[in-house]
């Protein structure tokens, strides 16, 4: 019945129902969910609307999905239902270079937008490491960050207007310039639980006239993290301020030969973009701080090619860990910047207790940690150790005044941890918003809000 109706409305090419096709949509970059009953690939907002109406009539939940690069089950079905994939809605609809904005469909790949507008001297700032495949719609759902959101802000700072399909299948639009409540900002980061974003106006930035990238190497991870806190504490907010420890650097160098020193305990990758007039002073100020904190070396990338290689290594870091262990689990927590050394000590202690190898690669300037716990998922003891270690790291971040997700989202995997940072009253207040937009809990159910009922396996600490 469901499939017939969807095929009748969207055509046979837009509906997938064979088990092997459905299986592809049952997991994301980390989590496994259930098989959906159907997957649709709409070509237009009208298709999305028709899909929602059919699903609603038949009582099927909806799971919107971008490229599936999420790490916490936000885009995987937990109780069947219909997955809406935006793979075919990937057109850049309008470009307004004078006012520096673009209108894009949800399925446009993040990096494609920057490539498309590069000839106009513009770029789209949010740059999650998955930007080569992640979609802008998915980025909006999670309010995605990335290395450069340190100075440019996360996705919400770059979304100007949204086109949304609601739980009844009706289309509505919001703009940050609308009078009244800021529905645009409320929808960004709501992980598809308040509406399905089908298109967006996003802000574009002018490509900076000058970019410099530096690498500082440290003999101890502690010194590196103290240097980060000191840079931020001095009021210096470079465009990006990333850290990688020796586990990660070795894997990156083995995989890419990106140009990082492999004999250091930790390296900082620092970028500043802006006006040439500021660059020498900025470089001198940062170099002085890292040297005060005992940096072993300080190097400036001499060419665009060198810069690109360093960044390619950084953005490919998680993938490069395949050389260390068959599987890795990425935790995502954020702490106040001055607590970075404490947070890293806690990560080391937690992993050490369970004899797990941990690699740290993260947005240090934001205090946003991404410890990668290496394991082999065929070994159930290791799986248990990873879950426990992840939970310990989560708790230590909370104890340091931090939060349970800096940029990956809550999805299915972390929803039960929401009670660790929010009171029942806090969560009930969020639920009031849900009541207005999705009273039946048909849009991406089982995500964000804690609940006892589940059918999928918990694969991630929560």
């Amino acid at each position, binding site marked *: 019945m469901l499939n017939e109706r969807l095929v009748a409305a969207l055509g046979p090419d837009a509906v997938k129902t064979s088990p092997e096709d459905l299986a592809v949509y049952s997991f994301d970059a980390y989590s496994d969910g259930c098989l959906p009953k159907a997957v649709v690939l709409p070509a237009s907002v009208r298709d999305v609307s028709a899909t929602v109406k059919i699903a609603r009539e038949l009582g099927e939940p909806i799971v919107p999905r971008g490229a599936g690069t999420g790490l916490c089950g936000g885009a995987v079905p937990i109780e069947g239902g219909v997955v809406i994939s935006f793979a075919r809605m990937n057109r850049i609809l309008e470009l307004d270079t004078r006012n520096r904005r673009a209108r894009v469909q949800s399925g446009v790949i993040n990096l494609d937008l920057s490539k498309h507008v590069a000839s106009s001297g513009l770029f789209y700032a949010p740059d999650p490491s998955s930007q080569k495949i992640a979609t802008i719609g998915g980025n909006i759902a999670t309010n995605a960050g990335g290395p450069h959101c340190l100075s440019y802000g996360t996705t*919400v700072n770059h979304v100007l207007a949204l086109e949304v399909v609601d739980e009844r299948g009706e289309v509505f639009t919001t703009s940050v*310039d609308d009078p009244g409540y800021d529905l645009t900002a409320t929808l960004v980061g709501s992980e598809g639980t308040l509406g399905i974003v089908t298109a967006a106006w996003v802000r574009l930035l002018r490509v900076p*006239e000058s970019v410099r990238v530096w690498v500082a190497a440290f003999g101890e991870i502690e010194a590196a993290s103290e240097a980060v806190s000191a840079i931020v504490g001095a009021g210096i907010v470079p465009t990006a301020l990333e850290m990688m420890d020796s586990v990660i650097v070795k894997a990156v160098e083995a995989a890419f030969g990106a140009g990082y020193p492999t004999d250091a305990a930790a390296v900082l990758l620092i970028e500043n973009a802006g*006006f040439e007039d500021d660059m020498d002073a900025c470089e001198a100020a940062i170099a002085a701080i890292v040297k005060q904190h005992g940096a072993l070396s300080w190097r400036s990338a001499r060419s665009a090619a060198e810069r690109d290689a360093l960044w390619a290594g950084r953005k490919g870091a998680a993938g490069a860990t395949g050389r260390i262990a068959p599987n890795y689990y990425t935790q995502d927590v954020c702490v106040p910047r001055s607590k970075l050394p404490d947070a890293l000590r806690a990560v080391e202690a937690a992993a050490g207790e369970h004899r797990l190898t941990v690699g740290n690669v993260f*947005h240090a300037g*934001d205090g946003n940690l991404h410890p990668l716990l290496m394991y082999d998922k065929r070994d159930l003891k290791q799986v248990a150790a990873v879950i426990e270690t992840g939970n310990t790291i989560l708790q230590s971040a909370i104890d340091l005044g931090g939060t349970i*997700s800096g940029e990956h989202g809550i999805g299915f995997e972390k929803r039960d941890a929401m009670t660790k940072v929010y009171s029942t009253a806090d969560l009930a*207040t969020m639920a009031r918003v849900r009541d207005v937009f999705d009273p039946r809990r048909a849009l991406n159910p089982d995500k964000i809000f804690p609940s006892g009922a589940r059918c999928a396996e918990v694969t991630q600490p929560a």
Partner: protein
Amino acid sequence: MNVVERVEPATAQELSELLAACDRDGRKVAIAGGNTLAGMGLPPQGIDVTVATRALSNIVEYVPADLTIAAQGGTPIQAISVALGQRGQFVPFDTPLPAHATLGGTLAAGWLGPRRHLYGRPRDYVLGTTVVLADGTIARAGGMVVKNVAGYDMSRLYVGSFGTLGVIVQANLKTLALPARTRLFLAKLPDGTRARACEHVAALEIRPSAAFWIDGFHNSIDGEDGPEGRMLVLLEGSAAVVERATRELRSALGRAGVPETRVADAGARESCQRVIDAYVAPLGERSVTYRVQSFPDASEARASALHELGGKFSLRCETIVDVMNGDVVARYSDLDTRALGAKIEMLDDALHDAEPHAQVIASNHPHRAELRVWGEPPSTIDRMRDLKKRFDPNGTLNPGRFIGGI
């Protein structure tokens, strides 16, 4: 006439108990910060109790090394600026009348200042909030970290909600390092140079922090006489960047045919603040000030149209064009309250025919409530009403203050 009780709760708990009681008893509550933006929107209707937040006026936590600060909702913006300034930091809110304006009120009004094109909106600086809802619920959102995607970002919903969803009793903010150098550029803008001057300034490689083309507002801003327009540009950055920006700006204005310019470093921020204050400065009861949001490339034409409209109704029209964001602020006035009253409703209709989203941001005129002060409601107004109903089903908080009767 209703006797309005005035209460100044000293803690969130006290406020919670007070609101819960009012909500239960059907008493309507107005929320007062510094009352600096009372001329925006509509006055709340049928009020029994005014809750003033001034006793909730402390900086709760300031960690300069984290670039974060937490303060109670009734804290004056200036008190926050002073504390931050002592450590070389700031928050780019650009609030009018900062000595009186409160943090909670500024956020509740969703005030949009001229530097947002560069630094972002106030809501982008809010890391977390504590809010008391109409039923007394004390709800926290976010935290003290600069990146946080744990659940809905409720703080961004409260910003700009005009106290109709809850009372902001605390907000946690992200701060920035103050720019090393600030410089003010002043130029007279004769007829025929304005459009090009605006265009050149908006296209500068080093974007000015703020740029205004001002017609009128002499008494509110600089006390200078004369009808001709003038431009005021704020440059911020390192000494090197400000020097270069100065050269480029001078050259751009020269190319636009702007004859002479004046530069001042001392008092640059204060001058910019006077322009921001002028946004909400009424001329007694004899003026109404509108704001129209536009795009930079359309603002000059819109400002001219607003002037023409003033001429049509024989009303004085003074304008401030925020060149970098494209906002146009127009203050219409007449010789006295009655003279304005005879024409203002017709002007309001004509203005909204041309600019459906024009909002009244300042007026003490007795007819203000008859004007379309919020402009045309957005297409999502029903969802907004549903949100109000879900947060404040009895209509206890600031009833009638917001758009669409919310």
